[in-house]
């Protein structure tokens, strides 16, 4: 207890449990907070190290469209994930039979597949003469001379949903499982149909895990590099992450890369704030 007594000698009354926290806190500050703040600070420095808005002017000049594109991809996919994941999770909650058992084993598969593999998969699956188009052509649904063009918003969204819906289901499903059957039975005996049970009982009671899972999905989509890079890397518009890589790889321009980074922080800021709020609320 030598440590805490030396602290109190200086007149500070620091509870000793703080010292137990110190390694974790120092690690967090050093490995997360410092790089985060440094990237913000450096986005305001020009090449000579002086304060300037140069990086932001260039970012707005060249990449406004990409920022808007990233935002729309993210919003669209988070919304789609919400609908699909809630439907699946509710289905798993309400029906428990052999089909759901098989499904619930299979749906977890994408969780263990890294994005780079997903990207390569989508690359050959969604290509104009890829598996999907060839299959559709075999069925006589499309003409292979005019295949579906999917290396764009649609294909990117397909890839994101394929990967993110299972993740959201996993979190939501846990929440739905916590809801006691008696609530559902009570609602039904009061005359509620299945639709009402879902919208009035299940979803409201599981609100926090639904929102938390969507916040996580949202921020993952903003930060994903490989999938957009491999599907629409050279296209216009593309995502912020591809632009960041481009600035660094071709120009060693960390200033604009950091400014782009700050825009992606802004995109996730709202949701991050909400996430922290709910998380802190839960611990109280």
């Amino acid at each position: 207890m030598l440590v805490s007594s030396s602290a109190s000698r200086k007149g500070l009354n620091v509870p000793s449990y703080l010292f137990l926290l110190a390694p974790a806190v120092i690690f967090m500050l050093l490995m997360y907070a410092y790089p985060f703040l440094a990237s913000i600070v450096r986005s305001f420095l020009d090449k000579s190290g002086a304060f300037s808005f140069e990086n932001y002017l260039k970012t707005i000049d060249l990449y406004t469209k990409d920022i808007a594109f990233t935002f729309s991809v993210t919003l669209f996919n988070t919304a789609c994930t919400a609908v699909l994941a809630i439907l699946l999770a509710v289905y798993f909650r309400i029906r428990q039979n052999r089909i759901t058992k098989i499904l619930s084993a299979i749906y977890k598969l994408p969780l263990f597949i890294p994005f780079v593999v997903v990207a390569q998969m989508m690359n050959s699956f969604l290509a104009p003469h890829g598996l999907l188009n060839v299959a559709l052509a075999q069925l006589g649904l499309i003409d292979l001379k005019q295949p579906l063009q999917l290396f764009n918003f649609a294909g990117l969204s397909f890839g994101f949903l394929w990967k993110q819906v299972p993740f959201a289901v996993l979190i939501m499903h846990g929440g739905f499982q916590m809801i006691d059957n008696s609530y559902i039975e009570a609602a039904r005996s009061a005359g509620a149909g299945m639709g009402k049970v879902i919208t009035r009982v299940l979803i409201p009671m599981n609100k926090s895990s639904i929102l938390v899972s969507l916040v996580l999905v949202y921020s993952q989509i903003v930060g994903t590099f490989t999938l957009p890079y491999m599907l629409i890397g050279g296209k216009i518009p593309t995502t912020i992450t591809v632009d960041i890589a481009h600035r660094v790889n071709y120009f060693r321009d960390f200033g604009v890369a950091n400014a782009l980074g700050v825009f992606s922080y802004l995109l996730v800021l709202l949701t991050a704030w909400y996430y922290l709020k709910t998380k802190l609320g839960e611990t109280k």
Partner: protein
Amino acid sequence: MKRTVFVLLLALLVAFGGFAGGAKESAKTRLIYMTAGDTNMLALGQNVLGPGFQQKYPNVSVATIHTGPGNAGSQRILEKILAEAEAKKEVWDVDVAMVHEIFMKWAMEKDLLLNYTKELETWKYVTSPFVKTSLGVKIEGYGMPMFHSQTALAYNPDLVKDPPKNYAELKEWVKKNPGKFGYNGIKGGMSGVSFVVGWVYAETGKYKKYAVEGPFEKDEINTWEKVFNELKEFNKYVTITGGNVGTLDALNRGEIWMGPVWVDMFFTFMNEGKMDPKTRLLLPEPGMPGQPMFFVIPKKAGNAEMAKKFVEYVTSPAVQAKEIVQRFNWYPGIDGSYIKDSVPPEVFNKIYKDVTPQDLQKKGLSFPLAQYFDAMLESYEKWIK
């Protein structure tokens, strides 16, 4: 508190010191070879160059470390060496590295490299103009080329009977065959970048000024608006593919009929059965850029002498002929005439069939001076959005 932290840090240091010391004690010299480039470069180091060199020098073990494709791979090597320099380490970990042209500029600016190539036995075989300057920076003495990478247009001869011979004809061709020409923009890999640079050379006719003689003048950039507006129009008729590999895949699947590729990747694909063997190459007028991959030795490399022997080994006519040309179908780093006799004629004819040595001489251009290069890439983003 302070004392606890201090003791902990000390314990950590001792532990790390122990590990580091342990590694150094082994009797063999461990040659650390870091390579940028695609996975084929890793395979080359691990399966071919390393074992071959170890056979010659049994006391050496070559550890190949792969950093990834494109400039990003070279960038990672730079970060590593730069970090060691800035930490003022006396002996640096990386003994020899394989890098792109842009690395030479970055590393020369920071004075990170050893001046060594003229001491090599094999220097006399090198005739490429690329070893003198790279992106406008004098590099003679610092980089030894292992192979030359060239971009060219690959096309399917069944579908393209009369391929365009220059950029102007290509413009007409895409209008007649919309969507059948594909390239990967400028953010999806260097084959697309190379196509765009070739476009600027063709449209401005100022290759000499932009890539060889200079000087850099800002006013030049302002004259490019038309050049890139034309390219924007051109882009309306083309398919943007998903990367260097994306272009090759799309060609092979028949989605596009023509597109810019790296010749070395093209032949690797063909050797692995991933590309229709009928596919042909052509270098359109006035030419397209290429670049060598260079061996460099960091200034304070621990095993600089052994590293020189390694570079000498790889650039010897025998290894260049057998491994670089015959096995991988790449253009050699040393002058082709020194290897012609040791390579079967069918291999030699295969790689020089469509793009002849004369073509390479005339139309194998270099990338522009760094400032022009940056300006071209940024103009693309500025005008085509």
